[in-house]
């Protein structure tokens, strides 16, 4: 095969050079075939020694000789076969999270090994105690158990000991304090028991406790890591490249992250503006809907400010990049966001609330048990033994698993349904929302413009216009080109920047572009740059106008009515003018709406609802929504939203749909119900276990049964979240 040939051709030189690992975030892979195609096309590039696609994180790791390998070639090659790729550099926090994930898995394996082997010995001792085991044999088994348990706990217990130490240093109590205490005391006590030749030792309980709790930790960390990895990919995929104007008059493509203050950037008609800046030359209409929510374009010329994330519609612009100064829109928004973060009453997670009841209670109970037995005069050893039994047997297993198992299962199944959950407690907060506040532009409506007057344009005219439009990079032309269906683009099409495209077909001149370009006079007094329209002229026939606007998302109506049936109130707050907001509200059956709001008014409305005792779910995509998302109790954003907005959202909806939001709300409610069930079960279990432990009736055998039984029930209950609805 060609692959083998090219690898062997470069193979000898590659081996001699140091290789480098490069990561790319690659979007669009859905199956084994895609994975193979991506890897193969990467491997055939010169300098590439190995390429492996990670299906879980949607990243491609390439081992390549840095001198020969050209990352741009890879991105173009993958783009050519339909996968959007961007270089990706994992940040420090992520590398640390990955290391932590592996460490937890290793600890889990060690604890599992210890638990299995100690249990083997313990079962022998338990049955031996019943059938008359020789004391020497029992002591030997206990000593071997100790030999296994001590190093295992020293290794696998570290995550708990560290967390407990941190909490104690900060003079706080967390779940890990009683857990660490129970494990360490049980070990010390067991060694003393073994040395004195007693019937029972609690090595198995200590190690098994660690094993079950580590399962919960691993699930928790995996679920969190996966959503964070994918969230980071989305951000990397959005980071655009910009065209920098060099001093010698040439241009170069650079990443928007590398733009320096004062750089001149050229923005072609139809492309997104990558940086904040001031227009130096050129004039154009700019679609600012992502920033302000306003759906009609704004006319800009020299001296006007433009913002990253806006879309340059009609003419070429040269802008001078500048850092976000004190008076820019962006800095105002981030001020608002800071304030919103500071003002938000921190939501107390279910697990934290449970822990805050559990941790002190179990300490008090254990202490009382110790004092009680001492008072009865049974000696400190038995009293301590019973106190440890209380520590070990009260519900840490079930409690440690109750939330992470449900979260892992629920976020996993939501991810498959197209919703990315950003924060651990988002599900709980979603469950409690009782009103949904929508932004309009880009959230309920499509982010890109679509033809509004389809009925007025004859189908054959539209097809011609669409075929012509296929040769243009202009944003509106792209919207027209969607109607080309299966037809081919024309040959010899010329694009005149800022004007339109023209081609000679069958002796007739076809033109698609600005009003004047198609020979239509502007109606008096109207600023035609700011009208969202294209004109199409076919030879001498009268030109046809194609008007654009934002259509509702395909599933908007259905999703809104489904949210209503879930008992949620619906409101719409938009930065757009009244007319489009009113028509969208009427089409969707939303009675409460507000138009022409600025970011401050959006926040004010949400705070207003909150003082009425409502829990607000805010859904928005624009920069003007970011602070509102932060203010709301829980928030969601479509994947097409700006970085800053996505970062503020708890849930990111993948694909251009709203249905994942409905799924997320339903799943949130279900997850909360399952978590509460798990806690209820843990409580019921304690009603039986605690009195037994206090009375000193819990043998190691009973402890083992209680712990594994309760963990199993809680895990099985969590698995029910898999079945959505």
């Amino acid at each position, binding site marked *: *095969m060609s*692959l*083998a040939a090219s*690898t062997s051709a470069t193979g000898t030189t590659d081996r001699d050079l140091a290789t480098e690992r490069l990561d790319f975030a690659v979007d669009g892979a859905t*199956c*084994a*075939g895609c*994975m*193979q195609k991506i890897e193969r096309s990467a*491997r055939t590039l010169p300098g590439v020694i*190995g390429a492996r*696609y*990670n*299906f*879980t*994180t949607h990243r491609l790791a390439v081992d390549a000789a840095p001198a020969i390998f050209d990352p741009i070639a890879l991105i173009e090659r993958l783009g050519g076969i339909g996968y959007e790729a961007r270089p990706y550099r994992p940040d420090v926090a992520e590398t640390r999270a990955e290391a932590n994930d*592996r460490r937890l*898995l*290793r600890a889990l*394996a*060690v604890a599992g*090994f210890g638990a*299995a*082997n100690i249990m*083997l*010995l313990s079962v022998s001792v338990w049955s031996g105690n019943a059938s008359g085991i*020789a004391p020497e*044999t029992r002591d030997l088994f206990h000593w*071997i158990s100790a030999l*296994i348990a001590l190093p295992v706990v020293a290794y696998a217990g570290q995550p708990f000991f560290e967390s407990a130490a941190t909490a104690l240093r900060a003079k706080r109590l967390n779940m890990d304090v009683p857990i660490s205490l129970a494990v360490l005391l049980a070990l010390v006590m067991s060694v003393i028991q073994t040395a004195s030749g007693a019937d029972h030792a609690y090595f198995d309980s200590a190690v098994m406790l660690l094993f079950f709790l580590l399962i919960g930790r691993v699930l928790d960390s995996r679920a969190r890591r996966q959503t964070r990895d994918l969230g980071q990919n989305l951000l990397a995929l959005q980071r655009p490249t910009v065209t920098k104007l060099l001093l010698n008059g040439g241009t170069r493509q650079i990443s928007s992250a590398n733009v320096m203050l004062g750089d001149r950037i050229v923005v072609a008609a139809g492309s997104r503006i990558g940086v904040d800046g001031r227009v130096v030359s050129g004039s154009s209409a700019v679609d600012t809907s992502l920033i302000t929510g306003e759906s009609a374009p704004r006319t800009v010329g020299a001296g006007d400010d433009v913002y990253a994330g806006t879309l340059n519609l009609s003419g070429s612009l040269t802008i001078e990049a500048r850092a976000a100064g004190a008076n820019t829109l962006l800095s105002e928004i981030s001020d608002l966001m800071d304030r919103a973060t500071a003002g938000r009453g921190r939501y107390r997670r279910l697990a934290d609330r449970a822990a805050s009841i559990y941790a002190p209670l179990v300490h008090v109970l254990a202490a009382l048990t110790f004092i009680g037995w001492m008072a009865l005069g049974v000696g400190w050893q038995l009293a301590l033994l019973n106190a440890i039994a209380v520590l070990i047997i009260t519900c840490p297993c079930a409690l440690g698993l109750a939330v992470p198992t449900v979260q892992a299962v629920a976020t996993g199944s939501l991810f498959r349904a197209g919703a990315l959950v950003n924060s651990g407690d988002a599900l709980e907060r979603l469950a409690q929302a009782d009103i949904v506040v929508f932004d309009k532009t880009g959230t309920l409506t499509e982010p890109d413009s679509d033809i509004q007057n389809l009925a007025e344009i004859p189908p054959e005219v539209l097809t011609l216009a669409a075929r012509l439009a296929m040769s243009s990079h202009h944003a509106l032309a792209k919207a027209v080109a969607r109607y080309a269906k299966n037809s081919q683009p024309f040959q010899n099409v010329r694009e005149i920047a800022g004007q339109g495209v023209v081609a000679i077909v069958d002796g007739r001149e076809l033109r698609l572009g600005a009003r004047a370009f198609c020979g239509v006079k502007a109606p008096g007094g109207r600023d035609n740059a700011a009208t969202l329209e294209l004109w199409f002229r076919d030879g001498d026939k009268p030109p046809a106008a194609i008007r654009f606007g934002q259509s509702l998302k395909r599933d908007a109506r259905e999703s809104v009515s489904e949210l209503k049936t879930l008992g949620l109130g619906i409101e719409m707050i938009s930065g757009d003018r009244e007319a489009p907001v009113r028509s969208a509200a009427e089409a969707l059956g939303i009675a409460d709406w507000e138009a022409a709001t600025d970011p401050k008014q959006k926040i004010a409305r949400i705070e207003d609802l909150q003082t009425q005792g409502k829990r607000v779910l805010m859904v928005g995509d624009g920069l003007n929504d970011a602070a509102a998302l932060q203010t709301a109790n829980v928030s969601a954003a479509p994947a097409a939203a700006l970085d800053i907005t996505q970062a503020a959202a708890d849930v990111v909806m993948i694909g251009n749909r709203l249905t994942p939001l409905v799924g997320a709300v339903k799943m949130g409610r279900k997850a909360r119900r399952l978590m509460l069930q798990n806690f209820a079960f843990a409580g019921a279990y304690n009603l039986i276990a605690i009195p037994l432990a206090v009375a000193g009736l819990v043998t190691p055998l009973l402890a083992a049964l209680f712990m594994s039984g309760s963990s199993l029930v809680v895990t099985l209950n969590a698995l029910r979240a898999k079945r959505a609805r």
Partner: protein
Amino acid sequence: MDVVIYLLAAALFLGLLGLGAFVWALKTGQFDDMEGAAHRAIMDDDDETA
């Protein structure tokens, strides 16, 4: 009862072997992409080099 000592030693050795295998698999990144591994099983790999 002496035979128990050998049995225990054998059990521990096998257990450690399993633990070692897991740690090795973890270290070589075999748990990094559980989902992809499921798909790789059904990939045509006639022309894979590596």
